């Protein structure tokens, strides 16, 4: 295998997600640099998470009930983000939609990390037949168009937030399995692991004390760079009608439902979309910051 062939198995090869691994080089330079910038970005991520958690308290109105005049534009003192076609407050709806998007994205990434991580750890540590079996299975998943399969899974399970999370998680873990397995394989041949094995350390302790700590940083970096991807895929599925049923506030679905009003009242479909943009932007910058801080790369 040449170096170029290696690319097909690297992080860039995630089937239909943008390779955010390289975002660092593309990111416009911030006016202040280095560690301070990274920590500021992480504070921003924490703030978004806090807003997501507190959304029900922060929302000024009931998100599913009409509370004002129809089609109030952005900038109104009572409704800062306006109201929609039946007079619901868009700020309240967006806050609760943001909560759903952000928290479910974190859950999906966590599931992917744990399931994929375990599979990768098992494959990498066991080697031989187990490795081959697990990794061929993983490759099968990776060779199918993941978002399309997620659409089919979500459609088969029926609408609902839990089902969407399941659908995306099913296609999401193989990516982590690949990364973790690669890391473990390179660790297994390192002297400290060999020494531990010579000292008679059992397989469970070997994995827990000597392999896992080496894998965690790169797995965490991968996961944090991935949150933005999940936010975007979730929004697409929601847009296609594969999220919660009608009155529930959800970012993709709210845009899809108000699309016919676009030319008359642009803000109604645009605001949920802009919220998705903000989430994915924050997630990507946060992923970069985590990578910079953990890998010491500048």
């Amino acid at each position, binding site marked *: 295998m040449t170096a170029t062939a290696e690319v097909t198995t690297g992080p860039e090869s995630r089937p239909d997600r*943008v390779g955010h691994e390289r975002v660092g080089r593309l990111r416009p330079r911030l006016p202040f640099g280095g560690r301070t910038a990274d920590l500021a970005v992480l504070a921003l991520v924490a703030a978004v998470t806090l807003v997501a958690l507190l959304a029900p308290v922060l929302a000024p109105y009931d998100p599913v009930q009409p509370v004002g005049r129809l089609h109030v534009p952005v900038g109104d003192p009572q409704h800062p983000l306006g109201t929609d076609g039946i007079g619901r407050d868009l700020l309240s709806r967006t806050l609760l939609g943001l909560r759903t998007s952000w928290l479910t994205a974190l859950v999906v990434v966590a599931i992917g990390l744990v399931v994929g991580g375990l599979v990768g750890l098992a494959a990498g540590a066991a080697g031989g037949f187990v490795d081959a079996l697990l990794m061929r299975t993983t490759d099968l998943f990776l060779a199918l*168009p993941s978002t399309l399969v997620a659409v089919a899974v979500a459609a088969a399970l029926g609408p609902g937030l839990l089902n969407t999370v399941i659908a995306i998680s099913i296609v999401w873990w193989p990516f982590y399995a690949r990364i973790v397995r690669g890391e473990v394989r390179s660790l297994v041949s390192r002297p400290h692991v060999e020494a531990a094995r010579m000292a008679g350390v059992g397989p469970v302790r070997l994995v827990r004390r000597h392999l896992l700590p080496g894998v965690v940083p790169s797995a965490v970096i991968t996961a944090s760079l991935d949150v933005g991807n999940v936010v975007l895929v979730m929004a697409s599925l929601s847009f296609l009608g594969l999220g919660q049923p009608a009155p529930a506030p959800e970012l993709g679905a709210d845009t899809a439902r108000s699309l016919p009003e676009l030319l008359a009242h642009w803000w109604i479909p*645009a605001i949920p979309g802009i919220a998705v943009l903000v989430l994915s932007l924050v997630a990507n910058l946060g992923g970069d910051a985590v990578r910079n801080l953990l890998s010491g790369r500048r």
Partner: protein
Amino acid sequence: MIRVRFLAGRLAALVALVGVLTIVLFALQEISGADPVAATLGPNASPEAVAAERARLGLDAPAFERYLHYVGGLLIGDMGTSFRTRRPVSNDIATYLPATVELVSLAFVVALVLAVAFAVLSVLRVRGAGVVRAALFLGSTAPTFLLGIFGLVVFYQQLGWLPGSGRTSASEPAGPTGLLVLDGLLTGDVGLSVDALEHLLLPAVVLAVSPALAIGRVLRSSLLTTLETDHVRTARAKGLTERAIVTRHVLRNSVNAALSMTGLQLGFMFAGVLVVENVFSWPGLGSYLSASIPVADFPAVAGVTFVLGVVYIVANTAVDVLQTAADPRIAL
């Protein structure tokens, strides 16, 4: 010899993957609990009629037999009957596929052009590359439907440069291929081709932004790697201009990594097109799919997934083969 074995291996992998796809879809069909009999006969059918219909469709057979039946059907183009349209899913797909093919094809070309332009410009450090970089970064972070909305408001509503919905301003003309740009050219109706292209442009560009950035990034980083190799240093020492070095000595040697990214981005485009079609009222598979989802029309969803999935698998096999053409060492 090696080459034949390589191709045979790729082909076997392709068949195996399509097989896996059918297993996945069959399993989902089972899980979904979608009942074709209830859908065709309605809730008031007599138990006898239901039993007869179940027997006719072979629904009482064991799962493995039903799976074989399903695959056998797929081989002759039978994907079941849509619960919503009451027509065979394969007929529906045949109706909507050309619109999607036309859109994805143009978007693909646009993505490649943008990717190469982005990579080459930023490697050559052309003035303004930083602005393009920031714009693309923002564009790739945005959800596809927001880009579509932005395009509609700016280029259709405000500027009035481009049409905002549908494939053509004329009533849907029936051409030999169903690809309107091509049909216009074949039948000598240039007006139709131009009109269809105008309608295509906005959705195609929206669909192309994110894949373009992904491909462009990979191309850019492999360009930068190639620029540090010995033969490029030799070219520089000969006094060639930077532009000549990039276009003549670097681009082909860097194309490989970008090629595999391109194949993978196709999957992204197939998912993206489902969303884009809904924004632009594009009468393709995406609109068909999103009409099928709310009424739990699983045969339709499975049909669309199968067709796009197979195209994706075939395209990636083609990319693998192309890669050996660009770099023959891979097949060894």
